[in-house]
């Protein structure tokens, strides 16, 4: 059983390493992830939101709706722990 698990892990790892041949180099400033929309966020964050911290302005203002969904996720997990574990005495 463990032998088959080891074979599956090694095959998956080899396929993933073969897939990284096409990925951009580490630290490349012209990779597709770095030129798509984040230059606009970095350039406009002070004049539009008066917040020097680019991560906070993106997470709470430009992408604020995702943070609302995430707060709901963590609230739901707190409620689930209460509902599953409380016992009636």
């Amino acid at each position, binding site marked *: 059983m463990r032998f088959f698990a080891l074979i599956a892990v090694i095959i998956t790892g080899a396929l993933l390493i073969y897939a990284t041949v096409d990925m951009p180099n580490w630290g490349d400033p012209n990779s597709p992830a770095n030129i798509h929309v984040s230059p606009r966020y970095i350039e406009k964050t002070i*004049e*539009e*939101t*008066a*917040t*020097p*911290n680019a*991560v*906070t*302005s993106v*997470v*709470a*203002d430009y992408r*604020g*709706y995702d*943070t*609302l969904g995430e*707060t*709901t996720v*963590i*609230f739901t*997990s*707190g*409620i689930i*722990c*209460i509902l599953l*574990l*409380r*016992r*009636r*005495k």
Partner: protein
Amino acid sequence: MIGRFDNVIIQTISRLLIPPIQLFALYVIAHGHYSPGGGFQGGCILGASFILMVIAYDIKEAKRMMSEKVNTIFSSLGVIIYSGIGVVCLILSANYLDYGILNKIMPVTIAEARALGIFGVEVGVGITVMAVMVSIFLNLASGGEHEEAEE
């Protein structure tokens, strides 16, 4: 499941350290604009201070500080603050969560109104994260058995 184990060094140090830890957590939430920080990070530190209380003392002592009822009220208060700010923006005839319209009720420019909206939202997120961290830890550590189970 966590019994009381009295150790003088741990109890003294935690009694000295818990107020500065909470103060630092509020500092991290408030300075989210100018340095690394924000709502999630400060909320985790604030929850960690209550968990330190459970580790150093007993679960009953920590429940004296923050009972279960207050915990569940706090965890929903954060989500209400977040969506409440969005609904206020909706009432003032802008899009949902569009903080720029808040300069009609406060004497600031549009960019500073957005910064104030970001701050209010981060406070809500910090309160929810703190309450849920403490609540999950108390439920898992005691296995669900509470002495005063209000049903």
